């Protein structure tokens, strides 16, 4: 496992995800991916589900990857990486490894569409089969690659193009699917949440290093604030991520062996959710008088969930 | 070309029996085809299996045949009139029943006038193998009636075909085959 000590040292890591990709200016995907692939010194084979990251990092004739990389489809990043991992095992057993002196690790990236929704079956299958890989969900809470449609990760009240706010609607009606817990329920040896940015960079890098070095299927759900569809200024990406943590809208925690939960960051003072919602255009309509109750409802859900996480951590079961 | 049709219930081993017979005959240098016809039904549903045996490669892949032998390994199927479909005047029927031939013909009128042999393959398999899997005893009976190859040669081949099973199962099957060879009437 790569030792992540301080940023001065971590920044010496030669980048393995190159610029020149076509993600939006200020996109959190680039931040998260760089940290994950830089969090190990082992060689990497990566698969990526169809989505913003995939289309922007491999537009022919360019690739942004200094590591081996594969894209097949929207719903099969986990299945694809499981095949590559199986080949690695087979060739190692048959003494036909391409680089016998190197460890190869396997990582899959998918957006929330490719992870929570259309790709969930293949992720669940690959996880159940126990392949040795890390799956990172770049959770920007909607189908942003296709112009901001809702997903099962879209939070209550958010405006998307398929859950629009309107004269009689306050936007998304359904609660965000709790995928991290669902992945933990698979019995994964390691599952965690993370955010990009300077405040929690070490939390993310350490979790990635831990996940990659853990044998077996591991999962990181990384919140990826989307400047374009959440509607905030590009330079505010890390601030929005920090607010998601400080409001407990997106708490940072990890779960080991499917059950042992540890909260990895505890806000000194939980900030009201308005602070987070108010910074994003997708929630602007909630501040109209007739929709205020939705904010209250969201706050109630956050409070309950935060309480649940703390109780569960205390219980230590 | 020798054509054999099996009538069975799914789970009684007609497919395995048909394939075993094909295997035995292939070892004598014959060309064979063994297949079965069934739908999505589960254990207990009626089904049929087929053997074709010839001196030259068998090309016809259609399911239709005019059997030289009809082997019925389930006692209740003996009473279904379908077992005489597409048969010839000289088609030989070997059926499983606890009844003797005369009693059987009184009930199963469609078999009247047919060349009929009876063996209680169910009872034999229950007693010798411990389960109602009447396929191998039927092969014993068939060998007796058809005299297709010397019985000793048949036993050598079938022992080899069964060799993946535990010795106890092999021994039980061989006893069942020998008993049916003796008891078929």
């Amino acid at each position, binding site marked *: 496992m790569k030792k992540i000590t301080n940023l001065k040292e971590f920044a010496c890591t030669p980048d393995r995800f190159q610029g020149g990709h076509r993600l939006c200016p200020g996109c959190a995907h680039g931040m998260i991916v760089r940290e994950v692939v830089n969090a190990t010194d082992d060689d990497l084979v990566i698969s990526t589900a169809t989505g913003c990251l995939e289309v922007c990092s*491999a537009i022919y004739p360019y690739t942004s990857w200094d590591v081996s990389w594969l894209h097949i489809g929207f719903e099969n990043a986990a299945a694809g990486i499981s095949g590559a991992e*199986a080949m690695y095992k087979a060739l190692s057993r048959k003494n036909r490894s391409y680089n016998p002196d190197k460890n190869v690790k396997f990582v899959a990236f998918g957006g929330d569409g490719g992870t929570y929704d259309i790709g969930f079956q293949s992720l669940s299958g690959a996880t159940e089969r126990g392949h040795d890989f890390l799956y990172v969900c770049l959770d920007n809470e909607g189908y942003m690659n296709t112009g901001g449609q809702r997903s099962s990760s879209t939070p209550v009240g958010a405006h998307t193009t398929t859950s629009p706010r309107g004269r009689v609607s306050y936007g998304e009606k359904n609660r965000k699917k709790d995928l991290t817990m669902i992945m933990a329920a698979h019995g994964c040896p390691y599952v965690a949440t993370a955010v990009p940015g300077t405040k929690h960079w070490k939390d993310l890098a350490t979790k990635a290093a831990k996940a990659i070095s853990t044998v077996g299927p591991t999962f990181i759900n990384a919140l990826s604030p989307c400047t374009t569809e959440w509607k905030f200024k590009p330079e505010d990406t890390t601030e929005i991520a920090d607010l998601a943590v400080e409001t407990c809208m997106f708490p940072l925690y990890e779960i080991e062996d499917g059950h042992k939960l540890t909260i990895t960051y505890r806000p000194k003072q939980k900030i009201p959710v308005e602070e987070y919602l108010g910074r994003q255009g997708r929630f602007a309509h909630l501040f109209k008088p007739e929709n205020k109750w939705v904010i209250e409802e969201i706050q109630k859900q956050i409070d309950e969930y935060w309480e649940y996480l703390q109780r569960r951590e205390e219980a230590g079961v | 070309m020798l054509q054999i049709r099996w009538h069975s219930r799914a789970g009684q081993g007609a497919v395995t029996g048909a394939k075993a017979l094909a295997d035995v005959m292939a070892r004598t240098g014959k060309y064979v085809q063994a297949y079965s016809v069934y739908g999505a039904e589960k254990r207990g549903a009626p089904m049929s299996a087929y053997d074709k045996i010839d001196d030259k490669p068998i*090309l016809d892949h259609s399911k239709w045949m005019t059997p030289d032998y009809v082997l019925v390994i389930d006692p209740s199927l003996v009473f279904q009139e379908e077992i005489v479909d597409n048969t010839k005047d000289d088609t030989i029927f070997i059926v499983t029943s606890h009844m003797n031939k005369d009693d059987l013909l009184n009930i199963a009128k469609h078999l009247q006038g047919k060349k009929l042999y009876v063996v209680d393959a169910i009872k034999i398999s229950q007693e010798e193998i411990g389960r109602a899997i009447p396929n191998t005893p039927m092969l014993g009976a068939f060998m007796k009636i058809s005299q297709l190859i010397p019985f000793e040669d048949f036993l050598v081949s079938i022992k080899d075909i069964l060799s993946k099973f535990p010795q106890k199962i092999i021994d039980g099957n061989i006893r069942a085959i020998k008993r049916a060879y003796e008891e078929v009437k």
Partner: protein
Amino acid sequence: MAERYELKSKEVWDGNTAASHALRQAQVDVVAAYPITPSTPIVQNYAQFLADGYVDGEFVMVESEHSAMSACVGAAAAGGRVATATSSQGYALMVEVLYQASGMRLPIVMTVVNRALASPLNIHGDHGDLYLGRDAGWIHLIANNPQEAYDMTLCAFKIAEDERVRLPVTTNQDGFLVSHTAQVVEPLQDEVAYKFIGDYKPMNPMLDTKNPQTYGAQTEEEWHFEFKASQHKALMESSKVIDEVFAEFEKVSGRKYNRVESYKIEDADVAIVVMGSAYETAMVAVERAREEGIKAGLVMPRSFRPFPYNEIAEKLRNVKAIAALDRSCPMGAMGALYNEVSGALSANGQSAIMTNYIFGLGGRDTTVEHILEVIKETDKNAKAGKRVTDLQGFINLRGPKLSFN
């Protein structure tokens, strides 16, 4: 090391057993598969080979056919020999990924046991799945009996992995009629079979992590056309490699295969074009027709893709009337074989009278008598010098006659 499997010079195998032994002998590095009737026994047999130590590769039991082909793509791009098996609905679920596999030029071998597509649901054989995959950029080889299911699968690896081809290959056998029909198969011994296929030749393997590769880039209108054209060219030129592999296979097995198979076509006035086990049934019908004075012959494209246009036209050069028999419902068109063969004739300036017959859907029995009837009808066209029968016929269908026009 995988254990050597003791094989007799003649085995009695059904098509599934034959295909699974070919997979075993190819020492496939990764098999990722999901069972589906009627190809399930291929997957089961392979699992048993693994459990008994006859296979030392990885066997990934995925949760769907979509993931099966996806894992195959991942494994093949990683850099090793890959295979799977499927049928029907499973094939349909895979279709998206079939295009990905061929577009990335990955030499995956898939043993397909052909089965009808729902709805209504049906587990028996027709070519609905084969036709579904015909534009997917794969090479499609046809096997008419268990021996050929075995032989074609061995050849498939050698064709797919050839540096000049690097395309995925399906081997097709009829559900139940071949897959569940035991016949005499003369297998090669393990070492002979493996030597014939040869070691896997890597090309841009992802696992050579010192030299990283990007697979599955996005190409928009600026590039997509060129890639598809390049893939089409490779698929067309695989004909040459298929011929070479068949010739090499004849040397080790004594069995000769051709991209276009034919039977008594040399002096025929009337020809049947058909793929699958019905080709052999039709051989018997041709014999019967000749006994009755009709000079009938038989032609089959062994490789449905690449389609052997010129070779098939050459075989049909002297016939007067042709019936193309398609085992898939064309749904508002003529059957694919009718269209391909008509195109082949037209391209070569030939003008035999063409008719189309649809047969065997959902496992409907097609007997020697049925095909003999088709030959007789086609003979009417030959004798009249023009089409006097319906353009399209349905063999062994209950109800009034049905035709396209």
